[in-house]
């Protein structure tokens, strides 16, 4: 095969319309998969203003904020006025502690059966230290009647 024919073949081919090009163009052409189309076109969208999803999220933001405020408010109200806050024996217990810690009792509003003997004795001691001897004696008598078998420590 002479080398001279090669340039001729190429020139013919480059001029276009050659049998080889015609045959190649008749070849079936598989398109790129649709999934590729979607991925490429999606990637080509600029994030700040190409996608509507961020806008949708922004439109939901006030609603989400209002919902969280309502939930927080409901939680606070439940803590304040909830069923635990209304337990009948919680309030007297608090009052009882306050009463004995703030000032020595002149007359106990609580029945003797409800008093803890050790705490009662401590209150009586407090009355004595405060100089209310008569009241301490009254309380001691009441204690004795309530707890006749209770062994009182020596320092009381």
């Amino acid at each position, binding site marked *: 095969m002479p080398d001279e024919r090669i340039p001729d073949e190429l020139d013919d081919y*480059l001029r276009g319309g050659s049998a080889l090009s015609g045959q*190649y163009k008749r070849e079936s052409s*598989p398109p790129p998969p649709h999934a590729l189309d979607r991925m490429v076109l999606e990637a080509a969208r600029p994030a700040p203003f190409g996608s509507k999803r961020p806008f949708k999220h922004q439109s939901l933001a006030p609603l989400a904020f209002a919902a969280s405020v309502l939930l927080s408010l409901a939680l606070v109200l439940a803590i304040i006025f909830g069923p635990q806050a209304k337990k009948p024996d919680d309030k007297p217990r608090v009052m009882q502690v306050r009463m004995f810690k703030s000032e020595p009792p002149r007359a106990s509003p609580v029945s003797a059966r409800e008093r803890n003997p050790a705490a009662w004795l401590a209150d009586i001691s407090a009355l004595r230290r405060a100089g209310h001897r008569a009241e301490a004696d009254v309380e001691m008598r009441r204690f004795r009647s309530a707890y006749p078998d209770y062994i009182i420590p020596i320092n009381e």
Partner: protein
Amino acid sequence: MLQLKMDNQDHDAGLMLRYRDGDTAAFAALYAHYKGPLYRYLLRHVRNAGAAADLFQEVWSHLIATRARYEPRAKFATFLFHIAHNCAIDFFRRDLNLRRAIPSHDPDAQLLEPEVPEHQRPDRVAEFAEQQSALLAAVAALPQEQREAFLLREETGLTVEEIARITDVPVETAKSRLRYAVRKLKDSLRPIQEPEALPLRTYA
């Protein structure tokens, strides 16, 4: 196939400039125009559908990522297929096993070409279908550089000088590659085109 004239090329460069400035509709137009030629180029160049799909995505991703730096110094097709050429070169470098598994003269290379959909290959035109398969097999059997030169010419209609620019070689080298590719393809198809060389076959 894509046979682009200069006006179209200028138009494509304008579309790319518009996309650079934020017009995604311009990108969609470019993509619709070039997706077929680019995919066929990659598919028939690397001869593997999965790799071609990956490279196809890689090329567009690169174009998207670097759009801010785009300047129309050449035809848009030259710009796009230069990216594709570089991606393909990287692929061949990364996966040397692919080149070993598919030597240039492997007669089974045509098996890697995805099957043509049935509606595009009617059974009644058996001889024509046979020629199609033979041509694609011959293209697949070309050496890598010659195959690329032929595919670039057929899929883009670019000149030899532009093909040389895309493949980063002197013009004479690109011309030589294309010349040998054309010669081999013609030689490989000649036995089919000549009636006496056809295999014996009876048709109902």
